[in-house]
C-alpha cells in the first residue's frame, strides 16, 4: 500500500462535517495574522507550532515505534547549532543552514541509533540521555566552534529573496508564523502518511512486541533507525526554526535534558501514538506555561482576591511564580500518568465511548 493511497482512503472515510471543520480551521490559521496584529498572540502561536513539530517528531519514534528517547535535545540542538554557526560565522542564510542541520541531525541519529538500539527499555532511555548529555557538554567545551557557554547571538538575518523580489526581511513575527505553520502542517502530514503506510505498521509491530516483529522478518535495527531518522529530521527543523526565531542559543536552552523531557511531555500529555495527541499536548502546555511565565496566573490569583498584590505572599508569588513555569509540566505529567495514561486524547475517547454505550 502506497502512503498516498492510504491518505486518500482515510480522508474518504471521514465525515464531510469533519472535513469542512478541518478546512475552516486551516483557513483560520492561514488568515490569523491578518486579523490579529498583537506580537504576543503571534508569539504564542509560533511557540504552539514549535511544540507541535517537536511533539509530532518525537511521536514517530516514541509513540509509533515505542522507543522512548529522552535525548531528543540532541537533534534539536544539532539543528539549532548548525543553522546558527553557518549563519553567524559563515554568512550562510538559514534556509540552507536548516538543510545542513537536517544532515547533521541525520548523522547524529544514525550514530545514536547504532549505539542505543542494541539496548531495550530503561537501558535505551538511559543511553539516549547519555548521548544528549555528551553533546551538551561538547557544545560547552568546543568554544572555537560553538562559542561555549556564551552561546551564539544573531546579529542579522539575511533578507529572503527569490530572484530580485524581496519575499521577507524577517523584521516582524508574521514570516515566522507562516514558516512555523507550514513546517507544523508538513510534520502532521508526514506522521499521517507514516501511520497509514506499511512503514507505520512495521513501527507499530515493533512497539507492540519487538521479538514477534523480528520473528516475522521485520529488521529491528533498520526500522528503528528509519523511525529515529524521520524523527530527527523534524526535531532538527524545529531546532533551526527556534534558533532563528529567538535569535539566541546556548547549551542550556537547546541541548539540556529539560528540552528532551519537554518534548516527551507534549506527547504524553496529549496522547501518545496518535496524530492529534501532540497537537493537543502543545495546545495545553504552551498557554499554561506562558501564563505562568508572564505572571498571568499570579494576577489571576490577585483578581480572585485570595491574596493581594501588596501582601507578603502576593509579592512573593509575583516575583517567583514566573521562574517556576516548568512546575506545570511536572504537575501535569503526574496527573496524566496516574489518571489518564493514554493522554488527554485517550481519556476523552474513553469518556465518549462510555457515553456511546449508554
Amino acid at each position, binding site marked *: 500500500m502506497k502512503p498516498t493511497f492510504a491518505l486518500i482512503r482515510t480522508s474518504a472515510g471521514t465525515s464531510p462535517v469533519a472535513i469542512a471543520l478541518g478546512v475552516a480551521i486551516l483557513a483560520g490559521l492561514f488568515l490569523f495574522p491578518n486579523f490579529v496584529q498583537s506580537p504576543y498572540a503571534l508569539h504564542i502561536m509560533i511557540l504552539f507550532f514549535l511544540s507541535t513539530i517537536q511533539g509530532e517528531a518525537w511521536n514517530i519514534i516514541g509513540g509509533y515505534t515505542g522507543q522512548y528517547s529522552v535525548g531528543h535535545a540532541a537533534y534539536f540542538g544539532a539543528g539549532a547549532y548548525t543553522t546558527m554557526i553557518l549563519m553567524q560565522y559563515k554568512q550562510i542564510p538559514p534556509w540552507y543552514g536548516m538543510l545542513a542541520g537536517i544532515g547533521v541531525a541525520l548523522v547524529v541519529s544514525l550514530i545514536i541509533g547504532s549505539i542505543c538500539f542494541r539496548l531495550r527499555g530503561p537501558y535505551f*532511555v538511559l543511553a539516549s540521555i547519555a548521548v544528549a548529555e555528551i553533546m551538551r557538554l561538547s557544545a560547552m567545551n568546543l568554544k572555537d566552534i560553538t562559542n561555549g557557554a556564551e552561546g551564539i547571538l544573531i546579529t542579522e538575518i539575511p533578507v529572503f529573496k527569490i530572484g530580485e523580489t524581496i519575499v521577507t526581511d524577517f523584521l516582524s513575527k508574521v514570516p515566522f508564523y507562516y514558516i512555523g505553520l507550514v513546517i507544523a502542517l508538513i510534520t502532521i502530514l508526514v506522521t499521517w502518511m507514516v501511520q497509514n503506510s506499511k512503514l507505520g505498521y512495521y513501527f507499530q509491530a515493533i512497539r507492540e512486541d519487538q521479538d514477534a516483529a523480528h520473528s516475522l522478518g521485520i529488521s529491528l535495527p533498520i526500522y528503528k533507525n528509519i523511525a529515529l531518522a524521520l524523527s530527527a529530521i523534524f526535531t532538527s527543523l524545529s531546532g533551526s526554526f527556534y534558533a532563528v526565531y529567538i535569535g539566541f542559543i546556548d547549551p542550556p536552552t537547546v541541548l539540556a535534558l529539560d528540552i528532551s523531557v519537554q518534548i516527551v511531555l507534549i506527547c504524553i500529555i496529549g496522547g501518545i501514538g496518535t496524530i492529534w495527541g501532540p497537537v493537543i499536548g502543545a495546545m495545553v502546555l504552551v498557554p499554561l506555561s506562558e501564563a505562568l511565565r508572564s505572571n498571568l496566573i499570579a494576577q489571576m490569583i490577585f483578581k480572585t482576591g485570595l491574596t493581594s498584590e501588596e501582601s507578603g505572599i502576593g509579592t512573593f508569588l509575583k516575583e517567583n511564580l514566573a521562574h517556576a513555569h516548568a*512546575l506545570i509540566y511536572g504537575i501535569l505529567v503526574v496527573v496524566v500518568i496516574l489518571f489518564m495514561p493514554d493522554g488527554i486524547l485517550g481519556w476523552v475517547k474513553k469518556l465518549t465511548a462510555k457515553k456511546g454505550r449508554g
Partner: protein
Amino acid sequence: MTVLLQSLISGILIGGVYALIGIGLTIIFGVMRVINFAHGDILMVGMYMTYILFTSLGIDPFVSIVITIPLMFLFGAFLQKLFINRMQGALPQNQILLTIGLGLIMSNTMMLIFTSDYKILSTSYSSESFNVAGISISSPLAISFLITAAITLLLYWFLLKTDTGQAIRATAQDREAAQLMGINVRWMSILAFGIGSALAGTAGALISPTYYIFPQIGGIFTLKAFVITVLGGMGSIVGATLGGVIIGVAESVSAVYISSGWKDVVVFVLFLLVLLFKPAGLMGKSRM
C-alpha cells in the same frame, strides 16, 4: 606521581558519596523495578534541608544528618505510598515519566521557595585541608567519606543480618516468591523507597558544604546515579558501592589529566561503553 595519588584519593573520597547515591537508586530498583528519575531531586531536597537547618538553627551539616535521615526516609515513604505505588506493574516508560514529573515538581517547588540563586553553605572548615605525606586532603570531603563509610557498613549489616533486611533482599530477588513466603512486599517497597531517599538525602547533606546549592542541581546527580548503578549492575549493592568509587576516581583523574570541562563527558562515554559491552554491569547478573 603525587598528582596522580592526589587525584586518586580525592576521587575515592567523593566516590564514597557517589556510592551512597548509587546504593539508594539500586535498592529502589532492586525491590520495585522502578528507575527513579527523581533521585537527584531527592538529593537536592536533602541539600536544602541541611541548608535550612544550618542557616536558621545553626546546626552543623554533618550533625544535622541525624535529623535529615529520618525526615528524608519519611519523605521517600510518602512519595512511594502516594505515587509510585500506584504504578507497580505499569509500563516501565510510564514509571520513568512519573518519576521525571515528581522530580520536576520538587525542583520547581524549591525554585518557587528559594529562587534559583546559588546558595553557599559555608562552614568554618569548608575550605580547610590537611596534609598526609605531601598529599593535601580536603577536610569536609574526608569527614563526609568517614560518615559515608559508616552508613554503608550499617546498611550492609542491616541488609545481611536483620530479618527486615533479608526480607528486602528476598523481595528484590523474587517478588512473588517473597510474597508467598509471607513477606509483606508492599511494606518492603515503602521501606526500600524510604531507605533509598534517605541515602540520597544524606548524600545531599554531606556534599552541601562543598557544592553550590540550587534547585536544578538534581539532574546532574540523577544522571550520575544511573551511571554508577548501571556500571555496578542494576540492583547490586556491592556493585553500586564499587561503581561510585570508580566514577569518583574516573572523574577526578580525568579532571586533572584531560580538563575539568570534559570530565563528565569521560563519565558518560564510560557509561555508554559499559551499556554496550557489559550491560549487566560489573556485579550484575545478566537481566537484559
